[in-house]
């Protein structure tokens, strides 16, 4: 861990201003990923701006449109166990509780969850080349040990995956992200927030330096009747996903009227394919239709030495999870 200065920001504007003023500064909230990366010498900020003392960013409040606003500084656990989240957005609650450990969920914030970085072994290991950590050095995961790596949307420069569980649910729910910064406030659609690696894998998302997430808005529809979250991993708990699926369905008269399927562990961002969701509209919720949707989602999937199994695994997981959401499992 390098030497850095520390400032506790009293409000969001000060935080954004301090951040804007120093391109080597970083915000710290829960710190669960940032301090981990600092101890690995992967993150080496010159300044840390502590935003935990900013008032008003940790609330969970209803919106006039019937939706729900999640404060960026609300902790993951407080969000998952919030009565409104449990009732109206059980998919989100379940996704959050599938991630990390109880201790980490008590520390980690909603904004921070979105900002967490990949778990790629090579990104973490400063003795190996990594384009995400040091652009231009190469991708060691290609041709290396790539069990946890992407099968969709990867590039020649990076095959890392985005590790969040919470974000898979937020993507499925069509959340929006409220951001403030030196150029004012803006709203980002959740599915636009994270990006694919392309030839700039060092960029995980489209947030600009100086900007700060203030809250996440959930639309009215929480898919609370027909939802399911499935996480497949190498141990029963406290492990990152090999494949994770968030599904929300609306059913009417035995037909699917609305479908959302977001996949984690497969790409550099929560993976959604609107064509697959559209395909399911007015279809019967049966295995064959979900298989067809899974094929659309996984179209173009490419495996490497250690992760090729994830293509078939993901297909089975999508089908299982959609059947569970439709209450048709078994």
């Amino acid at each position: 861990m390098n030497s850095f200065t520390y400032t506790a920001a009293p409000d969001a504007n000060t935080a954004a201003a301090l951040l804007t003023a120093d391109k080597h500064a970083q915000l710290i909230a829960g710190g669960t990923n940032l301090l981990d990366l600092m101890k690995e010498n992967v993150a080496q900020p010159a300044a840390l701006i502590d935003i935990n003392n900013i008032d008003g960013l940790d609330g969970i409040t209803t919106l006039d449109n019937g939706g729900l606003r999640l404060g960026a500084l609300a902790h993951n656990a407080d969000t998952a166990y919030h009565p409104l989240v449990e009732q109206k957005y059980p998919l989100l609650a379940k996704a959050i509780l599938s991630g990390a450990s109880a201790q980490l969920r008590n520390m980690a914030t909603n904004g921070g969850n979105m900002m967490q970085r990949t778990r790629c072994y090579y990104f973490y290991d400063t003795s190996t080349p990594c384009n995400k950590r040091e652009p231009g050095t190469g991708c060691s995961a290609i041709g290396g040990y790539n069990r946890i790596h992407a099968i969709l949307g990867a590039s020649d420069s990076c095959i890392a995956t985005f590790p969040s569980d919470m974000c898979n649910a937020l993507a499925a729910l069509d959340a929006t992200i409220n951001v403030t910064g030196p150029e004012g406030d803006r709203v980002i659609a959740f599915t636009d927030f994270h990006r694919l690696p392309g030839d700039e894998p060092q960029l995980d998302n489209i947030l600009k330096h100086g900007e700060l997430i203030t809250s996440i808005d959930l639309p009215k529809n929480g898919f609370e009747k027909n939802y399911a979250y499935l996480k497949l991993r190498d141990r029963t708990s406290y492990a990152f996903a090999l494949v994770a699926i968030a599904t929300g369905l609306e059913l009417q008269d035995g037909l699917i009227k609305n479908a959302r399927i977001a996949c984690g562990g497969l790409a550099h961002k929560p993976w959604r394919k609107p064509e697959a969701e559209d395909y399911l509209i007015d279809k019967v919720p049966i295995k064959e239709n979900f298989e067809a949707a899974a094929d659309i989602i996984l179209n173009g999937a490419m495996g490497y030495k250690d992760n090729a199994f994830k293509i078939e695994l993901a297909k089975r997981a999508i089908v299982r999870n959609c059947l569970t959401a439709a209450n048709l499992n078994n």
Partner: protein
Amino acid sequence: MQQKYIGQPVSRVDGEAKVTGSAKYAAEFNVPKLRYGYVVNSTIAKGKIIKINLERAMAVQGVIKIYTHENRPSTAWLSFNYADMDAPPGKPFVPMHNNKIVYNGQPIAMIVAETFEQARYAASLVTVEYDKEEHESDLHAHLTEARLPKKGLATLLKPGPPKPKGEAEKIYEASPVKAAGTFVHGIEHHNPMEMFASTVVYEGEKKLTIFDKTQGTINCQLYVANVFGLPFKNVRVISHYVGGAFGSGLRPQYQLFLAVMASLDLKKSVRLSMNRHQMFTFGHRPATVQKTKFGANDVGKIQAINHESIGETSQFEDYTEIVVNWANMLYPSPNTKLQYKLKPLDVASPMDMRAPGGATGLHAVEVTIDELAYQAKMDPVDFRLLNYTDMDQTTEKPYSSKELKECFKQAADKFGWKNRNPEPRSMRRNHKLIGWGIATGIWEAMQLPTRAEAVLTADGKLTVSSATSDFGTGTYTVMAQIAADCMGMDLADVSFKLGDSDMPFAPISGGSFTAASTGTAVQAACLGLRKKLLKKAQKMVAAFTEAEFDDIDFTDSGLHLKNNSGPPLSYREIVAATKEKTLKSKNMGWPNAMKQRKFTRATHSAVFVEVEVDEDFGIVKVTRMVTAVAAGKILNPKTARSQILGGMVWGISKALREESVMDHRFGKFMNDSLAEYHLPVNADINDLEVIFVEEDDKIVNDLGIKGLGEIGLVAVPPAIANAVFHATGKRVNDLPITMDKVMDYASPLV
């Protein structure tokens, strides 16, 4: 001797210290003006260091000195000075010895600073220029180059395979019932929860007190004294509490060498702790490839056993373990061919890791036996009973005791084995295929000479000590129980001390031999003390003057004449009458070689496992497991049960979770963290049951102790593998059994 405490489920005597946080581990002794070390590791696997750039690191405020191979103080010249009690044949690794890199992750520099944070920061600023050479780290790419291991002192405890008998290959080929397999094990790291650390307290010229994480304080004392040329008595190594070790503490690790070096050089106290990545930069359980070919006749009697193993070792030491010797100890066969070879690679020397060799070899043996039972169309329990023996056929000696049959009976009843449908893929629960599997376990019951001292004080308290270890094994507790019974005292008046090289000699603690070795020493010291008590009593009270040792009951903290010819005399009174106000006896507990040599001494286990395999995903869950263990006298069923439970969790982990995965382009482990090296978590562990079938075995030692550290683990991986076969109809012989290896087998066959 009345057994009031031995055999009772006494709660751990060190429990309160552990649950309140007052138990102090190696890195927790805070002394004034402590300096902090931090190690820099190599990032290549083979080559030479051309230059280490230290300027930026030296510029960090608080940095006192940086050690590298170029400036380190000289230590012993001769290689044998670096050989500890557990050193395999070869030349032990010497940290920062020269500019040569022999494995990725070897320590190449150490920062010493005023604070931990300064040292850690400075370490990140060190850059190294290497002259890289091609390395070899992949066992599978070099199997044909394997050779026989070199012999040395350490091989005494680890004999090579016995000579071939008969014509095992030919008979196998001709057998009507055959089973064969190739078994692949990856590398595993011990990963105890406490990371290796040494706090070296500088006590003055050439005098050190060292708080170290080790399974042998005297081993480390000898190592430090030999390497740094210090008088033995000036080196005191203390290790009262060890946060798990599992074999990793059998040898001094590099943090000890480096912390001592810096302390002596700076004449300051120094603490050096490893980080979790560095816990992957020394010994490990070696990768192995095993091949088995077992044959039986048409009634299911085994007639040929072929078992060969190739393991990796480092380029500088021939680490060996007993992998292939087990099959013929368990199953009689007139024809056997057992072979064990090594391939040196550019890696750190492997080390003993819980049930070394046994956990590896028995997986291959017991899966092959299971397959042979299927081929013979027999129930796997019946097949094992048909091929049961009370004699170890590798030595042609009988077992000193062997209640394995009773283990099978009790575990099968508890498990409900009789309800099993033998057909693979015949049982299911919703999306889950159900499988039931069994395996047999065996581990040697060893004993090594160990000393203990028993001290009675005038307050009526007994303190017994030995320089042995308790890394969670329960040594503190069971030794106090033994001492209390030997002396006829209340447990509350007895304490047992360990983990200090100033205490009477004990060897390194491992291999399941500590309870038997130290227990015998404690018994000897107490016997010595009883004799001294009688001598004193004879001078004090007339009624005792003529009494012989056998006329006395040592009970209720006093001497009682069996014939009631006089009042008892309390230990307290006797000790109070001595000039020193204490009475001591220091004795060696010797293994009874005369008794032992005619027998093979071993523990046995029978393990019954149920797994659920998700039919779509191939995820294996161990839903329940019953282990029955025959391991002589159980000193404390509570701590003993915990040890077996721990072994079962290790078995689940070995079968389903653990593997250190190397990227052979770098010769480096890529999942070197607890996030990616998957140890089981609480949610992984379901219904576990332990049964002890006691054995009354006076051949192993007077107290009948056999040891429990390894027997809980060895049979679990094959039992799980066999259950996965029963669930899916396919053999996955490549551990760990992860979902990708099972998925296609789990999906419904079409």
